[in-house]
Structure formats: structure tokens, C-alpha cells
């Protein structure tokens, strides 16, 4: 706090010397009349901030100076009165300015505190880059540090993802060797696998957070299936972009899609059963008794299974990617990964656009 004050003071002292003649002449008069009103504090005047009061004083100042010299001999009483009025005006002016400066200093401190508050809230995970929309109720839940760390890591993950997609795009438009392409494809695959590892760690900390896809943008969340994308849907989206495919490849991809669908169905049904058993646990006993510790304890045990479902869903995504990599050539895989990456970029762009769309005036 001391530093802000000292930052304030020096520039203003210099400003004083650049001001119009009038305020200085006011002080000269004060000196001549044993100006007891003059205090060191009153030097600090934000001259550029309050031009109005300055001009107000100016009108008193300048004529008085000449009056003083011209009329001292002729009308001493009038002069004395004018000088007194002038002193009074100057004193009031200084007090006003002092009050104003103190107000400015208080506001500035408030601003600093607010900025610090904002930074802290930002670091708690509201990534503007990933989520334009905010929590529906407008306040942030108390997020654990593990989830905060996950959100920050995810932000970096998306940045790296965008970089990789750009690189793939550039490279595929030109001439590129299979060797170089294979390297890019492997990196892209590893990048996805890294995300699954991150999610697995976060699921142990807060499985509901992962289940609800809170780190994703709104459009991505619309397509959510157990904390991420649905592998069979993705295959459907990407299939046309692999052309041309050999007959065997077409067969393999179709089989993969069907297997994916069956695996997803099985896991989905398992999830439904989990929901039913959880609901049963919560509703067990006498609903209305007011005490329900055993029910909560039982429900907590059931909830443990949710983590394994989130992990299994990611396992399906992992395996689907792995199988596609096996079925496709390097070049096809590169094109597929580019298409996949851009598909998610488009979903994120959709989220942003939707959040900031202009509403039609009603």
C-alpha cells in the first residue's frame, strides 16, 4: 500500500509546475498574507483531472492579482475583502482536491483487490479458451486442486492439439514422406492416450465432474456419452473421409463399427443398472424419517463403480483408435486424425458462436 502512494506523488508534484499561473499566484498571495493555510499535502493536485475547479479558481486568481497591484492604495478595504475571499476559495479548493485524491486512492486499492480476486477465480478453472459459457447459476463450485490442475492441463492439451492439427493440415497439403507422416500419426495417437490418462486420474478425484464433461465446451457436451465422445458415432462421422478404402478395409471398418456399437450398448446397459441400484439404495427404507446415514453409506459404495464405467468408456475410445490405426495406412490414418481433430475444433467453434450469438430484438 505504501508503494502505491509513493507512485502517486512524484508525477503530480511535477504536474504542478506545468500548470497555469493562477494556482501559483494564489499561493503567492497566501505567502504574502502569512498563508497559514498552505500545507505540504495541498501540493498534490491532479490538475488534469479537475480542470473545472481550476478554471473556477482561475477566474478568482488572475483578476485579483492585477486588482491587488492596481487598487491597494485606492481601496484598501475592498482589497482586503477580496484577498480574504480569495484565501477562503483557495482553502476550499485545496480541501476538495484532497478529498478527491483520497477517493481516487481508495478506488485504486479496491480495483487492485478486485483484479487479484478475478485472477484467483480464473486460475480456479474458468478457461475462456475452452468454455465461453459459465455455470448456469453463475457461481463457481469449490473445485479441488486436482480438478483445477486437470483443467489447466486440459487447456495445454487443447493448445497442443490445435498445433498438431495445423501441422497435419500443412503437411498433407504438400509432399511428405511416409516416415515423417508416421511420426506425426504416432504423436497424435499418443496425445489422445495422454488425455485418457489425465481423465482417469481426475475421475478418481471427482467422477461426477468427468461424467458431466464439465471441462468441455457446450456443443461437445451435447454429444456426451459417459464422459466423452461415442466411438461408434465418430467412426460414422469419419468414414467418408478415408476414401479410397480397399475392400478388406471397408469390411474391417464396418466390423469395427458394429463391435463398437455392441460394446457401447453393453456398457450403457451396465450404467443403467448402476443408476437403478443407486436410486434403490438412496430410496431404501422409510423415505421421510429424516435420518438416512445407512442409505447414504450404501449409495457411496455403489458410486465407486462409476469410476470403473468412466474408465471402461475411455478404454473403448482407446481401443477404437488403436484398431483404426491398425486397419488404415499411414496416410489414411493421418487424414483421419486431421478430420477427427477438425471435427472437435468445429464443435468448439460452434459452442463459442452459440454463446455469443446476437439475439434478435423482440
Amino acid at each position, binding site marked *: 500500500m505504501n508503494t502505491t502512494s509513493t507512485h502517486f506523488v512524484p508525477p503530480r508534484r511535477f504536474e504542478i509546475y506545468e500548470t497555469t499561473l493562477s494556482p501559483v499566484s494564489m499561493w503567492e498571495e497566501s505567502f504574502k498574507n502569512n498563508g497559514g493555510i498552505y500545507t505540504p499535502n495541498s501540493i498534490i493536485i491532479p490538475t488534469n483531472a479537475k480542470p473545472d475547479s481550476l478554471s473556477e479558481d482561475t477566474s478568482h486568481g488572475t483578476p485579483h492579482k492585477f486588482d491587488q497591484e492596481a487598487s491597494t492604495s485606492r481601496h484598501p478595504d475592498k482589497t482586503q475583502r477580496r484577498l480574504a475571499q480569495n484565501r477562503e476559495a483557495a482553502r476550499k479548493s485545496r480541501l476538495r482536491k484532497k478529498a478527491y485524491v483520497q477517493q481516487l486512492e481508495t478506488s485504486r486499492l479496491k480495483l487492485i483487490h478486485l483484479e487479484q480476486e478475478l485472477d484467483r477465480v480464473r486460475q480456479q478453472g474458468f478457461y475462456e479458451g475452452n468454455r465461453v459459457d459459465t455455470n448456469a447459476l453463475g457461481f463457481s463450485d469449490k473445485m479441488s486442486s486436482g480438478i483445477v490442475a486437470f483443467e489447466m492441463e486440459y487447456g495445454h492439451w487443447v493448445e497442443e492439439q490445435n498445433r498438431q492439427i495445423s501441422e497435419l493440415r500443412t503437411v498433407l497439403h504438400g509432399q511428405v514422406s511416409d516416415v515423417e507422416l508416421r511420426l506425426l500419426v504416432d504423436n497424435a495417437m499418443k496425445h489422445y492416450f495422454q488425455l485418457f490418462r489425465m481423465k482417469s486420474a481426475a475421475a478418481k478425484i471427482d467422477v461426477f465432474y468427468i461424467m458431466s464433461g464439465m471441462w468441455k465446451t457446450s456443443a461437445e457436451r451435447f454429444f456426451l456419452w459417459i464422459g466423452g465422445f461415442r466411438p461408434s458415432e465418430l467412426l460414422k462421422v469419419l468414414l467418408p473421409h478415408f476414401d479410397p478404402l480397399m475392400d478388406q478395409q471397408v469390411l474391417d471398418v464396418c466390423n469395427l463399427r458394429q*463391435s463398437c456399437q455392441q460394446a457401447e450398448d*453393453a456398457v450403457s446397459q*451396465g450404467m443403467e443398472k448402476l443408476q437403478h*441400484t443407486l436410486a434403490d439404495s438412496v430410496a431404501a427404507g422409510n423415505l421421510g424419517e429424516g435420518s438416512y446415514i445407512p442409505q447414504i453409506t450404501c449409495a457411496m459404495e*455403489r458410486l465407486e463403480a462409476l469410476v470403473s*464405467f468412466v474408465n*471402461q468408456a475411455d478404454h*473403448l475410445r482407446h*481401443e477404437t483408435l488403436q484398431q483404426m490405426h*491398425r486397419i488404415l495406412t499411414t496416410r489414411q490414418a493421418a487424414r483421419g486424425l486431421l478430420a477427427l481433430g477438425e471435427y472437435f475444433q468445429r464443435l468448439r467453434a460452434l459452442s463459442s458462436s452459440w454463446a455469443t450469438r446476437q439475439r434478435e430484438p423482440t
Partner: protein
Amino acid sequence: MDKVLRMSSEKGVVIFSKSSCCMSYAVQVLFQDLGVHPTVCEIDKDPDCREIEKALMRLGCSTPVPAVFVGGKLVGSTNEVMSMHLSGSLVPLVKPFQANLC
């Protein structure tokens, strides 16, 4: 362990599960989708539940349930079953045990 070996050597697909285990249920559903009727052993209903769990872990299962045996041989848990299915190697494995629908 004897119990495990005896139960798992039953013909076809054997799934060791628990009545409360939803993932075991998911695996069951998958096999049913493939036209197989798996034998489900709910070990929590067995008095030797703890022993069976330990035996399954010793055989190499990451989690005691679900544990899937096909034709007497251990396939593994959910991860292994799903990986096999996505790679296309599960269907040929269970083909001899698919219910004849014709």
C-alpha cells in the same frame, strides 16, 4: 481354487460376477448380444466368496469380478473382453458356443 477350476471348466462361457456388480452385468449383456448364453456364477451368493475372489486374482484377474472363462480358459476381465471384441477376435472364440437359432 478347486471350485473356480471346476466351475470355469464348464462348457461355454462362464462369467464370475457379483449380484451388485454392474460391470459384470455389462459383460453379460455383451455375450448375450453375440448370441451366447453365459453361465453366470454370482460369487457373493457363495459361502466361499472370499476364497474364490483370491483364487481369481491369483489366476491373473485385475479385479475379481467380472472374470470371464471361455472353454475353460481365462480370457480376463472387462478390459480384455472389450479389447478382444473390438479387434474382432472375440466372436471366433465364442462361435462354437453360440446358441443355434435355426
